[in-house]
């Protein structure tokens, strides 16, 4: 059997939209088979994963809250991936952002009641964003100056970030009155992200994600910088001919993705968690890679993809409780989904022909 690929002349819009949907359907099918192999009912699993979380206001909000960091990080990553820069260390940039911003939250804990406090939250957000940018600059600099593969360095830096956070949560930032629990004090209310509505779960971080989507649409489609990003990814030599600098773009794309991840990190710490803990991310930085690709590296697509992945994560937690399905099921499903998306992408670029016969 032989597989032949034949480039399509112009791409079909319908196919571009249909491809990720078909990929999603195929991934769900494969996931169902895995569930059946584990001896559970695929139909029930489908319901728990994808329907149940949508049926209550509470869990709908949860989907949005969990989607926010995914979308924010993935929008940032889309700038890198489009430019063929492989920042796979968003998880580390997320952690460093959460740590740096959170440190301010710890330091300002219990300030005298008549002190000015309006600056604390903005300072935390700024510190988180800057820490994410700074951390992302390490692989960017190594690549631009020395030609070191950013894939390996950014990933190694995730392990370093996790250990750094662990050290601070157990050491300098630990709550001295916390019975030796490895966590900091709870932040004061002025150091917490405000909720969008009283008594609900949606916090301002969700808004940041939406703003990021809007910015992404404008920057990628309408600006010279966005043109540069797309051009470098599509034809690097042509980008140099157009007069764009490789190094400058590397810094900019890493700064954007690192900043977005750092901001997502501090939003998680100042929003959901409210203190520094040894682990602050359930792997948002890695899941966001899937979100970016499932959304075809386009801002609106990323928004939808973030919601779908968030849905499956929350569904996975439900499935763990109600069906005793291991949490790893979710991660395995996400891996399968990413594979299907990448395979589907091939069909949008090429006509795939199978031929049978002896010819090699």
């Amino acid at each position, binding site marked *: 059997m*032989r597989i032949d690929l034949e480039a399509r002349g112009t791409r079909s819009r319908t196919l571009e939209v249909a491809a990720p949907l078909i990929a999603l359907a195929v991934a769900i099918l494969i996931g169902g088979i895995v569930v059946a192999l584990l001896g559970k009912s695929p139909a029930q699993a489908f319901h728990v994963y994808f329907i149940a979380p949508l049926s209550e206001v509470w869990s709908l909000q949860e989907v949005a809250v969990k989607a926010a960091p995914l979308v924010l990080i993935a929008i940032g990553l889309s700038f890198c991936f489009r430019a063929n820069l492989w920042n796979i260390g968003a998880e580390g940039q997320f952690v460093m952002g959460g740590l740096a911003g959170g440190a301010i939250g710890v330091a300002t804990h219990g300030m005298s009641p008549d002190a000015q406090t309006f600056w604390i939250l903005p300072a935390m957000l700024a510190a988180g964003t800057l820490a994410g940018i700074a951390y992302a600059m390490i692989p960017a600099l190594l690549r631009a100056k020395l030609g070191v593969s950013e894939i390996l360095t950014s990933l190694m830096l995730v392990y*370093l970030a996790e*250990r750094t956070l662990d050290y601070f949560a157990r*050491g300098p930032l630990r709550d001295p009155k916390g019975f030796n629990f490895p966590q900091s004090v709870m932040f004061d209310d002025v150091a917490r992200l405000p909720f969008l509505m009283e008594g609900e779960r949606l916090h301002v971080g969700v808004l940041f994600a939406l703003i990021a989507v809007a910015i992404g649409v404008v920057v990628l489609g309408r600006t010279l910088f966005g043109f540069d990003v797309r051009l470098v990814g599509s034809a690097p030599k042509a980008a140099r001919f157009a007069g764009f600098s490789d190094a400058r773009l590397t810094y900019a794309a890493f700064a954007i993705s690192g900043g977005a991840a750092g901001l997502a990190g501090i939003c998680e710490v100042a929003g959901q968690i409210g203190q520094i803990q040894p682990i602050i991310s359930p792997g948002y930085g890695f899941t966001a*890679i899937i979100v970016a690709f499932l959304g075809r590296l386009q801002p609106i697509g990323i928004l939808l993809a973030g919601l779908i992945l968030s849905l499956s994560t929350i569904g996975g937690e439900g499935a763990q409780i109600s069906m005793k399905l291991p949490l790893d099921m979710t991660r395995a499903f996400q891996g399968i989904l990413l594979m299907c998306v*990448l395979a589907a992408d091939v069909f949008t670029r090429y006509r795939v022909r199978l031929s049978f016969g002896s010819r090699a």
Partner: protein
Amino acid sequence: MSPQILELVLVSIVMAATPLVIAALGELVAERAGVLDLGVEGMMIVGAAAGFAAAIESGSSLLGVAVGIGAGVVLAGVFGVLVIFMAANQVATGLALTILGVGLSGLIGSGYVGMKRESIGHLDIPVLSDLPVIGRLVFGQDPFVYAGIGLAIAIAWFLNRTRGGLTLRAVGENHASAHALGIPVRRVRFLAVLFGGGCAGLAGAYLSLAYTPFWAPGMTAGRGWIALALVVFASWRPFRAYAGALLFGGATVLQLHAQAASIGLPGQLLTAVPYLATILALVVLSLRKRRGSIAPSSLGMPFIPER
């Protein structure tokens, strides 16, 4: 340092180096054929989980190893079909493979957490294995260690001395030319990728069957990524990969000893040593390069023949 302790340290360095070098050698072959497979970590951890589960169920270590290798080959096969025959992006697909592998290993291993089994035995030759310092180092290792060394020699010989090796290098060097000469580029690449997967699975099985020996989620702890770095560090040469692995093994072992001796540094810093060392190694390598490009010229580029 007494001879006994020195011997112990050296033996443990070689043991720590073994999974790295086995995985790195497999990746090296795939990369020499022009395919960048970032899924090493994923294939390795599935190899560890599947190998351990099979060994527990069957009671046979040998079967465990075989299943570990088989798991790596199957995952590599999926990757290979996507990137070689369907020209999917190699970096993204490799990442997907790792994410998938980590999840899959959790599923496979979920029933086996906390179980222990006897480690695969060490060679024990009377007299020779009892020689001071070098006795256990040379004559008292487990079979994987010898397999790792054998693999390095075999791959070096294959790449540089055989027709098959020449063909494989040609494919990685310039796939258009290779195709024009009638070399089945995609088939050669697919086989190289499968071999890489088998090696990653073997390395994983070593971890869960001989090194620890138990299954724990996330137990590969980035070794697959370090193996990838080793290939670059070794300039795509098998023996250099072995030397590099010993260096990394050394860093890991020293870190463990430093922790045991509680020398006052935070434990987190010490456990971070292998990752820091990886970054440093890549930086050092980039500083002393300039001796021409050594990476296979077609590395990472998909090949689409017209027919």
